[in-house]
């Protein structure tokens, strides 16, 4: 089998959401001494990009998206230690702190965005739901995050997205992080209004936006 064929199978495993196949192909690639950056960029990432397209076209829905993200995570779990050893953190997108804002316990959308970001090569620190605004900043400072992602389902709790940006300003940290907002009531207009760096309509769009913001698009 040629490398091109193997890459195509990796991509297909992600599109099919086949976790075992994705993991097995990654192990084979590792054993065969493949260039792991090529494996990620030509094998797996095109798969998750295809999944994103299928989602945007209304062909794939949440179950398919979750399965594909899980398959991607399984493959990356195999490849990451080796990638890190060879100092190829470059294929990784950077660090993201994500959570659902204070007062809001809804985490379905946030979990999905966290999964897709991870599948897209970001290192994700998921703080969970009902997260105190100060904790987002503390965690971002601690891990050296590039992005802070804030989810809110309620029109009332989305006000906390604005509050976080105010807090960052007060601490003189506003320019240090890109802040993304999301959740059912969030809109592009809302993101602009509160001075966020971006808004995405869904988990797939969120990954694209995150990549653009860290200069990987």
């Amino acid at each position, binding site marked *: 089998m040629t490398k091109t064929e193997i890459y195509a199978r990796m991509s297909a495993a992600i599109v099919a959401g086949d976790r075992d196949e994705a993991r097995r192909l990654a192990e084979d690639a590792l054993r065969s001494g493949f260039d792991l950056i090529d494996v990620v960029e030509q094998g797996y990432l095109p798969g998750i990009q295809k999944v994103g397209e299928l989602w945007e076209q*209304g062909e794939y829905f949440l179950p*398919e998206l*979750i399965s594909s993200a899980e398959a991607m995570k399984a493959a990356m779990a195999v490849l990451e230690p080796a990638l890190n050893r060879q100092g190829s953190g470059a294929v990784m997108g950077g660090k993201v702190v994500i959570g659902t804002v*204070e007062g809001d316990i809804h985490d379905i959308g946030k979990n999905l965005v966290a999964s897709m970001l991870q599948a897209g090569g970001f290192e994700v620190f998921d703080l969970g739901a*009902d997260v105190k605004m100060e904790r987002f900043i503390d965690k971002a400072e601690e891990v050296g995050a590039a992005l802070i992602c804030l989810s809110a389902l309620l029109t009332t709790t*989305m006000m906390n997205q604005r509050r976080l940006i105010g807090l960052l300003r007060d601490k003189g940290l506003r320019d240090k992080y890109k802040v993304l907002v999301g959740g059912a009531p969030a*809109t592009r207009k809302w993101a602009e*209004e509160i001075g966020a760096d971006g808004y995405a309509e869904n988990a797939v769009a969120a990954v694209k936006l995150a990549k653009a913001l860290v200069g990987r698009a």
Partner: protein
Amino acid sequence: MRASLLDLARTRTVLFDGAMGTELMARGLGLGVPPELWNVERPEAVREVHAAYFAAGSDVVSTNSFGATPIKLAAHGLAARAFELNRAAARLAREAAPAGRFVAGSMGPTGKFLKPQGPATEEDLIASFAEQARGLAEGGVDVFIIETQYDLREALAAVRGARAASDRPVFVTMTFNAFPRGYFTIMGNPAPRAVAELEKAGAAAVGANCTLTTAEMAGCIRAMRPATALPLIAQANAGQPEVTPEGGLRYAQSIEDYVRSVPEIVQAGAAFIGGCCGTTPDYIRAMARTIRQEVKA
């Protein structure tokens, strides 16, 4: 025995109520406090919202119990109080209901995905919905309304839970997004198949709520109509929330805009109509006027 809600729907379009959570917040419900707690802590506020909707023309109101499954309440450490909070929710709506009006026991999603996407099993969900339904039945609801469901498997588990607890009619609404190929839940359940499956599971009325505006809702009801013999329910959002120049929030669809598509929803085949996020007693009053004109025409 008095006429049932389903009997009424055979004679004319039946009007549900509008949003509850935002009405309670306008009365001081704080961030992060589950609205259902007010069924015991601020019962007069909850009763007042129901009374406002009845006064606006609602034939039936939904109880303040949307998030009161034990699974959902567990996030607030209140799982053990599910029966009590649901019974109180039903009693408050019952107390506010004038003679001949109706009470629907609201049952929202648990917020947990079923396996393999999430940790929940069908048995977990059935048990949780059954516990909620027991409380609602004890408090005196006329029907159950399982609402805003996005996973057909969870909706079916809710129907089974409700039917295990009581023989009262079970209404079900799911929430759909509009795509070029039709109307689908986030899990990919197409609207026509969803209503057909719910009918098979023993639902008494089925439909759509939340997410869609009234203009989009008409199309969704039209897509469902051929797929089931049951009466259809339509409860649209007042558009998407947006920021006002003063920094507050409002929903994009004005009352006039919201009501404009109501006749089309009725013509598309909805027997029950009502509001969802962003609607208030004023929206319901305007809908009541529109529906009455429709009936006369």
